């Protein structure tokens, strides 16, 4: 056990720092009028440099636009620390990098990888997820959106018909990965294929859903004979369920980032230092101090547990059932943060934060208050997580479910 940074890693940290000084904020030398580039262009340029330097997408092969570096937790930690200190962009956020890229790398064809991976890494391509349906939530495999191969203008095409829901930011995405039933005569799981589609295709209608926060981050997506090329299938026909399992595992682990919990706790601590509670500075009130340390016990457990898991993964050991628990642990911490924040912000809870732009006051914590409820549902609800822990972690028998 050794958490220290030796000379090699200190040197690596210096390399990262000098890289950041030279590349973020984007220097004028980056190109014509660089100072006035829109934010996405600046980020795309920066990510390209950071990939070349070996700092972003370290696990993605160079062939597909990644940095292809040997896995090294400490280097990854140093990069994350230094990038966040300088507020430099990390991996492009969104479902594309969290779920689609790992899936394509694992199950995609050479042509699919070449076409989609690099531009998703830089943030040029945005993806939407086409999994859930109005009647297929936790029981995802009961989905009914169907696809069949038909002769189209450009040869064989998939014709997709059906409805998806809860597609995050689909209104801004260019592409979607869709689970559709292609083998109507096969069993529940065996009839599903994993398809990619251009959301600009005729027959696709996207309708944003107004959510509890008033914002519109989710969409309904309707397919009415929408077409996509025959070779935009990932994995074989009828293998979509297996392919999607690979992706859900990626989503669970990415949502489970302990560092997020640490960051959240630090923000909560700053809040407690800046507000009054029952007439005294909150941070001096014994009840608040007790609740903060109680919460910190969970947060630090999660953090050091993640150190252990990363160390085990790097040593090619299996961390065991803890990997099934990370999402629920993170979700629970999110709830506890929301609960304490709600008590700290007092009357600011009576006014909603603006849907766009930054809130001026502490009402911005309502985003955590509501958002933590969303996290508890997305990517497998907390009760589904509990089933998974009990059934896969403890080997308890599955509930009777109708096939």
């Amino acid at each position, binding site marked *: *056990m050794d958490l220290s940074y030796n000379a090699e890693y200190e040197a690596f940290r210096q390399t990262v720092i000098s890289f950041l000084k030279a590349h973020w904020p984007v220097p004028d030398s980056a190109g014509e009028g660089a100072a006035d580039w829109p934010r996405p262009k600046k980020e795309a340029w920066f990510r390209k440099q950071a990939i070349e330097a070996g700092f972003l997408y370290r696990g993605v092969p160079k062939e597909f636009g990644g940095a292809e570096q040997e896995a090294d937790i400490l280097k990854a930690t140093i990069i994350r620390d230094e990038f966040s200190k300088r507020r430099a962009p990390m991996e492009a956020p969104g479902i594309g990098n969290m779920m689609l890229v790992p899936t394509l790398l694992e199950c995609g064809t050479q042509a699919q990888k070449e076409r989609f991976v690099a531009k998703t890494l830089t943030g040029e391509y945005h993806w939407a997820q086409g999994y859930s349906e109005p009647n297929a939530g936790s029981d995802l495999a009961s989905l009914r959106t169907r696809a069949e191969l038909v002769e189209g203008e450009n040869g064989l095409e998939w014709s997709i018909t059906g409805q998806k829901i809860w597609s995050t930011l689909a209104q801004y995405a260019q592409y979607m990965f869709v689970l559709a039933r292609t083998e109507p005569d096969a069993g529940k799981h065996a009839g599903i294929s994993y398809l990619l589609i251009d959301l600009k295709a005729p027959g696709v209608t996207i309708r944003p859903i107004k959510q509890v926060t008033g914002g519109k981050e989710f969409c309904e997506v309707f397919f009415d004979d929408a077409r996509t090329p025959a070779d935009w299938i990932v994995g074989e026909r009828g293998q979509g369920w297996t392919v999607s399992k690979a992706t859900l595992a990626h989503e669970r682990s990415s949502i489970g980032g302990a560092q997020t919990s640490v960051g959240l706790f630090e923000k909560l601590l700053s809040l407690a230092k800046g507000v009054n509670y029952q007439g005294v500075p909150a941070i001096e009130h014994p009840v608040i101090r007790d609740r903060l340390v109680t919460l910190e*016990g969970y947060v*630090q*457990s999660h953090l*050091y547990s993640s150190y252990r898991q990363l160390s085990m993964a790097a040593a090619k050991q299996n961390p065991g059932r803890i990997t099934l628990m990370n999402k629920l642990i993170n979700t629970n911490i999110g709830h506890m943060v929301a609960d304490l924040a709600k008590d700290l912000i007092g009357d600011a809870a009576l006014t909603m934060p603006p849907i766009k732009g930054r809130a001026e006051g502490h009402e911005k914590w309502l985003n955590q208050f509501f958002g933590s409820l969303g996290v508890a549902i997305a990517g497998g609800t907390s009760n589904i997580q*509990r089933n998974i822990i009990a059934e896969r972690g*403890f*080997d308890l028998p599955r509930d009777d479910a109708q096939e």
Partner: protein
Amino acid sequence: MEFLLSAEQLEIQDTVKRFLAKNCESTKLQRYIDEPQNLPTDIWQGLIDMGVPALIVPEEFGGLGMELLNLAIIAETLGYAAAPGPLLGHSLCTQALILAGSQQQKEKWLPLLASGEALGSFASAETGQWFGAELALTGNSLNGSKQHVPYAEHADLIVIALADNQFALVEKSASGLSISPEDVTDRSRPLASLNFANCAVELLPNSSTEAAEKVLNTALILLAADSFGGASRAIDMAVDYAKTREQFGQIIGKFQALKHQLANMAVDVEPMRGLYWHAAYAFDREPEASSRQAALAKAHLCERYLHVAREAVQAHGGIGYTWECDIQVFLKRALFNNAYMGAPALHRKRAADLAAW
């Protein structure tokens, strides 16, 4: 950077685990807790044979000179078995001598403590408080009392925490020392009260605030480690029961209510290992963070252990409420861990203060 136990550490942990699986299985455990007045000689001798009391003793005094983490992972293993025995008090006595003893005292006692030829214990609690002792010498002798001293009746020497962060050493044969067993909750680690009437004691001359803090941190870390082991076992027992007990024509582990209860317990417990590991690591390698991490680990792990032990009793149904079901031993051990050296809320307060919030 690597946050893992070494092959050597895993091996010693595994050796102790296998020893306890054989020597502290249910019937033996039940026999031990029915006779808390007796020293569990077989278990203690086994730990001595495996070198456990020697782990943290410096090599120059006949020990193995290892870091506290090595002892903590054994404490976890003992917690997993709810193994009766004096290791906690013995380790605190040893640590106090290492940190505050004179060269002469160390030469005299540490080899005996390392080899198990002498049994040590540690006296901290005074009515209602665990540290910031008020007991002080009058001249060269001691008058007053201490409570909750583990295995005091069997100890050859006891280190006593005194006012102003001083430690003193009292031997079994000292005149003016009387020992009364307490009717303890946790029979796997029985306690006794000490009374001193003009009792002759020997000061540990290198006593200091820092030494006192380190002995306290040692206790907190060992309790946290024991709690991780115990809480893990409570879950294993509840899961085993869920797999064997049948009602309504199926094993009860198929019912979602129980599955979710067990999952919630696991989500509490599994990540805690990292927190106690880090507290032990900080003791050895990050001294500036050590006191706070020890306080945080004690508060979190002992409190969660107690919670999970209660849940595990519930998961066992009626049988869980009986004396003969082992889960009660763990429940009571969790109560000990919770209270010994200060309740979780006290250590949370310390953790907040130590962070200078």
